[in-house]
């Protein structure tokens, strides 16, 4: 049976760690998550990592594999292990708690900062809102609503690493779905929240986020939409 050499990042902080090598038996249809699980169960029980569903639904197992952020449960070793070598590190642009586990607080804080929460004004006593599924706004929402907050786009974004205040692709994409929600009444506040050098204006259309999103969402498209909406608001004096 052939073997895989796996290099896994171990440590308590980003500046205080190193890669350690492990030998793992190579199996058919193995995923990177299988490999990490094997190491923790059979080789070194002190390895910390996150996972939940194992089937590509929850996004918890996101890590940096050979330098690229992805879901490890949906990454076949055969697709990424060139010459039998695999390098596994925690998600980037986030503080490291331990080994492959990152602190995602700032990711979700930025979600809130971008006003990524729905705000309506109807109560249960009003009739249902009528939103046509083939309307342009609803189609815009559909294209971005499936985000599960896995952090892969945030981890991949270069602007996030250059600009600590930048809200990032996930938060902005969520804001875009709400900007297109005809029931939402906090539009002015939301556009104020996503505008500026820490907001949608900072996106340079690298399109890395879209390239990496495991759900096929294009945050770049949503952010471009936000740029237009913000400019319109600015011209109308609403900013």
């Amino acid at each position, binding site marked *: 049976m052939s073997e895989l050499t796996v290099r896994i990042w171990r440590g308590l902080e980003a500046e205080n760690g190193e890669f350690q090598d492990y030998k793992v038996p190579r199996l058919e249809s193995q995923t990177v998550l299988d490999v990490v699980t094997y190491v923790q169960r059979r080789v070194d029980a002190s390895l910390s990592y996150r996972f939940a569903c194992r089937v590509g639904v929850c996004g918890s197992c996101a890590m940096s594999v050979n330098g690229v952020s992805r879901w490890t449960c949906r990454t076949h070793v055969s697709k990424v292990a060139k010459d039998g070598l695999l390098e596994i590190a925690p998600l980037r642009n986030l503080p490291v708690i331990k080994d492959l586990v990152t602190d995602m607080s700032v990711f979700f804080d930025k979600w809130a900062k971008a006003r990524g929460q729905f705000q309506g004004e109807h109560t249960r006593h009003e009739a249902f809102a009528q939103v046509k599924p083939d309307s342009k706004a609803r189609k815009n929402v559909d294209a971005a609503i499936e985000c599960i907050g896995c952090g892969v786009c945030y981890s991949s974004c270069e*602007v996030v690493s*250059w*600009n600590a205040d930048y809200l990032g692709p996930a938060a902005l994409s969520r804001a875009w779905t709400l900007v297109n929600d005809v029931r939402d009444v906090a539009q002015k506040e939301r556009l*104020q929240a996503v*505008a*500026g*050098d820490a*907001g949608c*204006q900072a996106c340079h259309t690298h399109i890395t986020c879209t390239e990496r999103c495991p759900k096929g969402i294009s945050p770049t498209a949503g952010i471009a939409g936000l*740029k237009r909406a*913000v*400019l319109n608001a*600015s*011209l109308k004096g609403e*900013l």
Partner: protein
Amino acid sequence: MRSIKVQVILWGAQRLSALVLALCVLVHLATIIYAVRSGLTAAHIVSRLHQSSLWTVFYSLFVLAIAIHAPIGLRTVVAEWGYQGRIIDGLLGTIALALVVGGFRALFALQGLA
């Protein structure tokens, strides 16, 4: 840190000047390629300028658009390399002014040749 309003205005001005420059650069490149075919001489440049006052209008617009576009672009680059603040903004404003002065000086110089 400028206000959100100013940040968006700077961004918008950059995009608007970009649109103007896209057209100016297209004309400029076409003119260059045409002009160098028979060897570039001062006489050629000057006579073309004097052919029509539209050229003066064109190059004036070109200079103004550059003076807006380049400094705002550089501001973003420099900010991502870690430098921002009032001093940087002041420096870039000076660069914008220098581009206006330099550009109109060049245009004036060429206009002045009969």
